[in-house]
């Protein structure tokens, strides 16, 4: 017995999931299912693809065509799925490591092509699955098991990177701002082109503990207090924005979509026949 959303969009027999108590990934996963529910998508026509990582375990629990691939390669597999069957709504769920470390190249190329895939990055600022090594999203100075003296890398701004690479819809939400995430995912799915939504997650087990950020509740409070919606931010001074980060819609532009452009080539020959 569970509620309608879970009943309809999850593989209930596989629950509860393997994630740690308080892991933000569960919240984000629910927000995505909610977006799919709101849009009323046909489950048979939704394909969810992931790589490897705690985050990438999500699709296994979701009742769609689900594909758990190799580390970093979700978008490359997803590109094959989408090209071969453009009528499928292809959604990629990936981690900060999966998407931006080993998978960084596939990310920028999918963005460049503007292929109609919606990617949600569960960014917990760490490699959770392998036990807390720093990731390309770990803030400078923070600790990881492979950054015992403080991380000297500078983190990516993943949405900004995706936008520069060519993504046409880009946004950010957090585990705390779960409803916003749902809204952004809805928009991303509706965007005809490549959409990337960063969902700031929480890894209490490794990132939180290692960096003395307190419990999951403490981190979610921090998210609540530090995030500023772009719409609000527009009215604030640089000083007021100091130390804050932006959530909401960060880019929304129309550009030709990849599979549609390919279809035009095919159509040329159909006409010729």
């Amino acid at each position, binding site marked *: 017995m569970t509620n309608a959303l879970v009943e309809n969009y999850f593989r209930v027999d596989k629950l509860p999931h393997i994630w740690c108590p308080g892991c933000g990934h569960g919240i984000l996963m629910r927000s995505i299912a909610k977006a799919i529910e709101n849009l009323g998508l046909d489950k048979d026509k939704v394909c969810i693809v992931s790589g490897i990582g705690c985050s990438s375990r999500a699709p296994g629990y979701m009742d769609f065509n689900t*594909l758990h691939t190799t580390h970093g*390669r979700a978008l*490359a597999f997803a590109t094959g799925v989408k090209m071969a*069957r453009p009528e499928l709504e292809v959604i990629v769920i990936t981690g900060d490591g999966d998407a931006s470390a080993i998978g960084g*190249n596939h990310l920028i190329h999918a963005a460049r092509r503007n292929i109609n895939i919606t990617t949600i990055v569960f960014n917990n600022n760490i490699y959770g699955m392998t036990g807390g090594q720093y990731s390309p999203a770990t803030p400078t100075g923070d600790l990881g098991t492979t950054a015992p003296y403080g991380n000297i890398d500078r983190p990516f701004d993943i949405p900004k990177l995706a936008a520069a690479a060519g993504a046409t819809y880009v946004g950010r939400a957090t585990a705390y701002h779960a409803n916003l995430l749902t809204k952004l995912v809805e928009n991303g799915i509706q965007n005809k082109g490549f959409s990337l939504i960063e969902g700031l997650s929480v890894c209490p087990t490794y990132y939180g503990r290692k960096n003395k950020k307190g419990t999951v509740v403490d981190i979610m409070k921090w998210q609540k207090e530090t995030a500023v919606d772009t719409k609000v931010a527009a009215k604030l001074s640089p000083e007021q924005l100091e130390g804050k980060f932006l959530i909401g819609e960060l880019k929304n532009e129309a550009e030709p979509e990849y599979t549609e452009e*390919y279809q035009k080539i095919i159509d040329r020959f159909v006409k010729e026949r």
Partner: protein
Amino acid sequence: MKKNNIKLMQGNEACVEGALAAGMRFYGGYPITPSTEIAEGSAQKLPKVGGKFIQMEDEIAGMAATIGAALTGVKAMTATSGPGFSLKQENIGYAAIAEIPCVIVNVQRHGPSTGLPTSPSQGDVMQAKWGTHGDHPVIAISPSSVKEAFDLTVRCFNLAEKYRTPVILLLDEIVGHMREGIAIPDPSELEIIDRKKPSKDDKNYLAYKVEEGEIVPAMAGFGDGHRYHVTGLVHDESGFPTNSNEIADVLCTRIMKKVEDHVDDIVAYEEFHMEDAEVVVLSYGGTARSAKSAVKKAREKGLKVGMFRPITIWPFPEKQVKEFAKNVKGIIVAELNYGQLVLEVERVVKGSADIFHIGKVDGEIITPNEILSKIEEVI
């Protein structure tokens, strides 16, 4: 004037034609000499039949996209050469455990690393079997002519579909770039195998359950209405990951056995003058052409020499080699590498015949005369 329907074609072109004839409707790859013509031909021809070509950002992505496409129900292929073949290995292993049918063409060139990138080689024969980590099934096939490049590409697709496994076409630069006459068979003459799909209304479909009497599980296409999970983790019959050792054993053994138990169906080879041969030249791919020429010359000299040509490299025609080895004095393995398939021959023959090796790593191909000299030395 055009007196027949024979066309002059490169091995690489014939591979594209074969793939299209077999039903390829997706190609995902990254260009690399000497396989590039396969990408180029696919780019040109696929949209004409409603298929899709995509040049990915690298070979890893090319392999991934190929698997992704195959999962939606289409027949998919990628092609590459040594360096790209190395990069594809991780995802080839994925296709093996997730049982996704697809075809990987490796037009072998000189290595290791960038080596002599435009020179021929047969240096990836062992890599085709062992390139990815962990135990996995392998089917690898090596054509010796342009005609075979066509026929065996069709066969690769058929075997991939039948056994739900990635199949490797081991071309070499010799055959890949050589132009030769080929009569493309009429589609009606070709045997084309398609993967078995579950029935539309099978509500209890388990994606990894082998039904009674079947070799592999029926495979639904993503989007066909059977929602299921695919993973590179060890998984149960539903496709969901498990840590159960029992299930791991069943799965990992099953994917090996589906090939092992059907070697007779899979293995192909050519015998030439084997009837009374005292010495056998074992050779494959482009090098087998030199071997055949050498055997002809030797026969002209009255020497009792035959040629055995494995067409499937993996599984290796173990039974056949073991059998003829009993009756011959020596086996000369001629291959364009430092000594790879010869190791398998040594293993199989168990000392029942002497084994000699002709190899080369200088970028040139082995000539008939080099083989002939060896024959004369050995006989």
